[in-house]
């Protein structure tokens, strides 16, 4: 059980830079998720932590120990592969027992531990079967059991749920999280699915193009995105983005989006100083836009915008409304079932407390 | 701290693994080739054209006949084999009951030596053989057809052609069949949906997609044809000279090592030329196919 530190990890494959100078600290016993689109370098980072790849630059530390060039078996990590990598020529029991056998543990201890791991994963009655006799979900459990049986320093998981069907995936999400809490092993989990990341991670490291965009708790990632990439990657439907020009006057601070104008309180002047006259990207999540009828306008700070209903998605639990405001579409999300007539006029209220503003050059958040 | 030495050495592991095999091959092919040139052109320390002269001008040398028959055999046999193999491959591509059994049977000739093939057809075509007996008992002929013996040279050629077709069609078949498997069923079905009938599907979809396999099959079959030996020797001896047969004869019977070496070099040169042509024309596709 250790904490993991990455310092300046860089890895190239030919001309492509897969991982570009990554620093990361993972706490002992923490469940951290590397989240990002495919090709962002998350799997490569995981494999570097595992020892399956060696970085071109940088160091990996387990605790105080520099493990950068150690082979995997000297790091005492465990890994659950995306394809499970359960050996077809061994029984389930032998698969799970393998790490223990290599360590040279006595036979009865092996049997004991294998049974423990199998029970935890509810595959205790499958121990004598061969992988080809199991379903995908069962094979996945074998892979997880094998990974935890040896009580590793670090548990690594590479998109372990992506090959399961939707229902099973949801079930395994909670099972894995509960399992991790129970055995308290430092876990690094790679996925491109933001729902997985948000529900399972103690903290999330969002990655893009080989760099870490932000590290934080799910709540921080969601409510305080530090750049436009993180803001746009997490959250469904995606956050609304539109360009606006900032104008600062003694009376008000305004965001001029062309089709409409948003007035901000003077207290924002400090933060937005220096962007006078400049163009910025404004972001607001669909659930922070409401039909003005439904909102107690006096009890908060809202900006009203007029538009027409362009498209409605009725999901049952939520209703998503695409509102046409001049040259743009703003997406609004309401809970419950609501009826809107296509093409009808509608006035929407933007919650100014939940507004995000990003610089146009770097994508970094100003607010 | 730079990378540990072990890591740097790891880069050379693949080369170390491949080196022995490569060295062995280069020696066992490079050295004989060089030695062949020496045997052909060097005698007692000096350059000599003695062997070449024997080859080209001596009345007991059958070089030009051998060249002629080797090429003639290839020219006659290969097109027939390609046609039959193509038909068989498309036929066997259809899934019918017993297809797998038929498949294994059709490739059976691949597993036997060419000498064995020659002997097998000898049992069929000899004067008391199956073929003659059958025809005589059916009343089609009254005297056995003679396939062997110098005075029946043209019949010997026919026997060789028959045997070669029986023996080596499977080589072409296997390549075409494998290639056909790679042609996605969906591509053919799409053509069907858009109105193409069986012949049109064959012509516009299957045949073009099969071309790489066809080219590979042709080249490989031709390369083998340059080396034809066992079948000819068992059925016709020297009545039908071929390059490999003459090489064997000169070396083993006459001990004309230099002459035999030249035959070997001729075969090698023809093969290398053909191979070079092939690689030059189709190299990119070859690597794409991902051997």
């Amino acid at each position, binding site marked *: 059980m250790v904490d993991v530190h990455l310092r300046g990890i860089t890895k190239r494959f030919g001309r492509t830079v897969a991982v570009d100078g990554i620093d990361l600290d993972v706490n002992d016993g923490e469940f951290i998720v590397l989240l990002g689109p495919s090709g962002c370098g998350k799997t490569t980072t995981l494999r570097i932590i*595992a020892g*399956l790849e060696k970085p071109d630059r940088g160091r990996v530390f387990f605790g105080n120990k520099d493990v950068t060039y150690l*082979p995997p*078996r000297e790091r005492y*990590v465990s*890994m659950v592969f995306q394809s499970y990598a359960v050996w077809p020529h061994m029984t389930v029991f032998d698969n799970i027992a393998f*790490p223990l056998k290599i360590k040279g543990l006595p036979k009865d201890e092996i049997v004991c531990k294998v049974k423990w791991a199998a029970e935890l994963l509810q595959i205790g009655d499958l121990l004598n079967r061969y992988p080809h006799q199991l379903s995908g979900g069962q094979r996945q459990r074998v892979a997880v059991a094998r990974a935890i049986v*040896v009580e590793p320093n670090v548990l690594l998981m590479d998109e372990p749920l992506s090959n399961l069907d939707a229902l099973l995936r949801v079930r395994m999400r909670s099972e894995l999280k509960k399992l991790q809490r129970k055995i308290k092993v430092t876990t690094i989990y790679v996925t491109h699915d933001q729902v997985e990341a948000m529900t399972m991670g103690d903290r999330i490291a969002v990655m893009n193009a080989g760099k870490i965009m932000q590290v934080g708790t799910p709540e921080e990632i969601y409510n305080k995105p530090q750049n436009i990439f993180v803001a746009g990657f997490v959250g469904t439907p995606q956050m609304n983005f539109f360009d606006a020009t900032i104008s600062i006057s003694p009376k008000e601070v305004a965001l001029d989006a062309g089709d409409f104008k948003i007035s901000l309180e003077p207290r924002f002047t400090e933060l937005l100083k220096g962007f006078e006259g400049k163009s910025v990207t404004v972001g607001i999540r669909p659930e922070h836009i409401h039909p003005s009828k439904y909102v107690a306008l006096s009890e908060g700070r809202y900006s009203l915008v007029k538009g027409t209903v362009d498209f409605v998605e009725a999901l049952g639990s939520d209703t998503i409304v695409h509102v046409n405001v001049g040259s743009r579409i703003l997406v609004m999300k309401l809970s419950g079932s609501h009826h809107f007539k296509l093409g009808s006029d509608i006035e929407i209220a933007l919650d100014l407390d939940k507004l995000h503003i990003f610089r146009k050059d770097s994508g970094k958040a100003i607010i | 701290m730079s990378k540990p030495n072990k890591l740097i050495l790891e880069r050379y*592991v693949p*080369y170390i693994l*491949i080196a*022995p*095999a490569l060295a*062995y*091959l280069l020696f*066992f*092919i490079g050295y*004989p080739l060089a*030695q*062949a040139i020496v045997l052909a052109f060097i005698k007692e320390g000096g350059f000599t054209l003695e062997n070449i002269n024997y080859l080209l001008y001596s009345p007991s040398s059958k070089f030009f006949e051998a060249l002629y028959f080797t090429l003639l055999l290839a020219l006659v046999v290969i097109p027939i084999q390609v046609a039959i193999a193509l038909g068989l491959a498309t*036929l*066997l*591509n*259809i*899934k*019918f009951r017993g*297809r797998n059994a038929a498949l*294994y049977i*059709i*490739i*059976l000739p691949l*597993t*036997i*030596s*060419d000498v*064995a093939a020659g*002997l*097998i057809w*000898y049992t069929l075509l000899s004067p008391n053989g199956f073929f003659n007996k059958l025809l005589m008992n059916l009343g089609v002929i009254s005297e056995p057809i003679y396939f062997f013996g110098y005075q029946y040279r043209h019949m010997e050629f026919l026997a060789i052609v028959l045997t070669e077709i029986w023996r080596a069609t499977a080589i072409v078949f*296997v*390549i075409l*069949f*494998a290639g056909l498997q790679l042609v996605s*069923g969906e591509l053919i079905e799409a053509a*069907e949906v858009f109105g193409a009938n*069986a012949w049109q599907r*064959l012509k516009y979809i299957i045949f073009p997609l099969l071309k790489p*396999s066809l080219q*590979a*099959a042709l080249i*490989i079959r031709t*390369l083998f044809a340059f080396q034809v*030996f066992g079948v000819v*020797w*068992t059925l016709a001896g020297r009545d039908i000279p071929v390059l490999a047969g003459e090489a*064997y004869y000169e070396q*083993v019977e006459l001990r004309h090592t230099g002459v035999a070496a030249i035959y*070997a070099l001729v075969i090698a040169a023809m093969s290398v030329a053909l191979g070079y042509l092939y690689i030059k024309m189709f190299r990119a596709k070859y690597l794409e*196919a991902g*051997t």
Partner: protein
Amino acid sequence: MMGVGLSMEARPSPVKYLLLRVLIYALVSIAVLWVLTPFAISIMYAFVDPKQYYSKSVIIPALYTLDHVRKLLALGAYSAIINSVIVAVLTIVFSFALGLPAGYAFARYTFRGKDSLKLLIISLRMFPIIVIAVPLVTLYIRIGLSDSPLGVALAHTAMALPFVVLITSSIFAGIPKDLEEAGLIFGLSRAGVFLRITMPLALPGLAAAAIFTFIMSWNEVFIASVLTLTNRTLPAFILTSAMAATDFIKFAASFIMVLPAMIFVFIARKYLITMWGITLR
């Protein structure tokens, strides 16, 4: 998928469909008979009673004898068979010892020059190997390997090596890489992974490749004939001695040459088509 002519959707009228089926089965039967009949006839004739053979009215003999095979074995075929087995086994040992590591390297590593090296091996595969026989005679005389099974085995190894490299490369590549990586994670060294994960999974394919190599060596006639005099392999022996003998000896000869190949092929039949397709491509 239903190949060229047939599809469940555009099924022609029942009569036409039936006719098509009949045609297919007819053609296939002709092909199968065309291949099998010579085998059947030659096997029969290997044991045919001489009187029946020469009798003009008997097409398919009913009387059989083991005489021909016995005579052939006594003539020297028995020791020739032993020689062939020795040569073939040595060939397998040498070619796998050299070729297996190279195959693994091609399958698992990326390195500079990989494509060119692979192309080189493929070209060597297409090289007419019989060409090395004549020069090797002189070399073998000098180093004392002439007329020996070892000498033939070394030449056969050169013949089989490109095939072994390519086929083992394909076999190893077919084993999912993450099975090996899991081995690394869970405690094995690279060598350990190769022995305990890769090899067990590769074994069936490797066994079939070994069988194919055996057959290649067993059937090879030119090199063996040139390189040996008294210690002949079976094909060489038959080429020289049996050719001058009676018809019956020839028939018996074809039988004993063909038998092992047919047995082995039956055992390894599943792998053969894929393997031949790969190697001959």
